[in-house]
């Protein structure tokens, strides 16, 4: 069961504040429940899948698009602030309340949907449930935050370690290059010394042969 809880102010009485809880199974488009409370009284109602289809047809909107609008109006909360209006009309005599929601446009508004809510006989249980729901969400979110915080610290350490290993690799590469060149030079210069020596001996042998030939 998915749930959201938001604060709303009815257009008919902007000073008043109500808490709107919407609940649904998997997909809002398959139907949803509404609980409305002013902190003292509470009303509940539901909108079925068929009613959603009918409302969508009434406003001549594609059903998927209509459900998208419902989500923004009823669930999104602060993100949709100002774009949707709510009207609450209480009928305490009949223990009812008429709740409607409309989309606010630049040049007017159009009704999205409405339903009749029944007054709850034991509103204190609803109030407790609302506060309890909030505390449970807070608890879960707190755990998630702590987990993310730990994960971030872990990722930072991993990144930091890898940066150090990269630095070491770059250093090692530079050291390897320098080391190899030093070794190569030693070996090459040994061979060059050998060559110089052999050339000297060859020159001496040639001079000796030339001198012997001259003597002869």
């Amino acid at each position, binding site marked *: 069961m998915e749930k959201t809880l938001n604060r709303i102010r009815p257009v008919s009485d902007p000073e008043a504040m109500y808490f709107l809880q919407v609940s649904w199974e998997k997909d809002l488009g398959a139907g949803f429940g509404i609980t409305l409370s002013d902190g003292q009284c509470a009303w509940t109602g539901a909108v079925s899948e068929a009613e959603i289809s009918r409302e969508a047809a009434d406003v001549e909107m594609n059903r998927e698009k209509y459900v998208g609008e419902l989500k923004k109006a009823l669930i999104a909360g602060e993100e949709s602030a100002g774009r949707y209006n709510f009207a609450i009309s209480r009928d305490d005599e009949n223990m009812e309340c008429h709740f409607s929601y409309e989309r606010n446009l630049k040049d007017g508004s159009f009704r999205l949907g409405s339903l009749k809510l029944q007054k709850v006989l034991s509103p204190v249980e609803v109030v407790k449930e609302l506060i309890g729901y909030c505390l449970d969400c807070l608890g879960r979110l707190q755990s998630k935050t702590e987990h993310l915080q730990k994960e971030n610290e872990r990722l930072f350490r991993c990144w930091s370690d890898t940066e150090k290993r990269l630095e070491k690799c770059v250093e090692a590469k530079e050291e390897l290059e320098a080391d190899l*060149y030093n070794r*190569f030079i030693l070996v090459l210069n040994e061979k*060059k010394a050998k060559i110089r020596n052999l050339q000297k001996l060859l020159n001496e042998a040639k001079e000796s042969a030339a001198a012997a030939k001259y003597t002869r």
Partner: protein
Amino acid sequence: SPDTKEHFAREYDCYGDSYTADTDVTQLKEVFSRMKDNE
């Protein structure tokens, strides 16, 4: 000229490294840099 060619052939190998003069890091790096990759 043929004489110059012969002189360089005596003094330097085909990679431009001297047969007799000791080399250092700078000179060896230069020799290596002149060597084509496909060699």
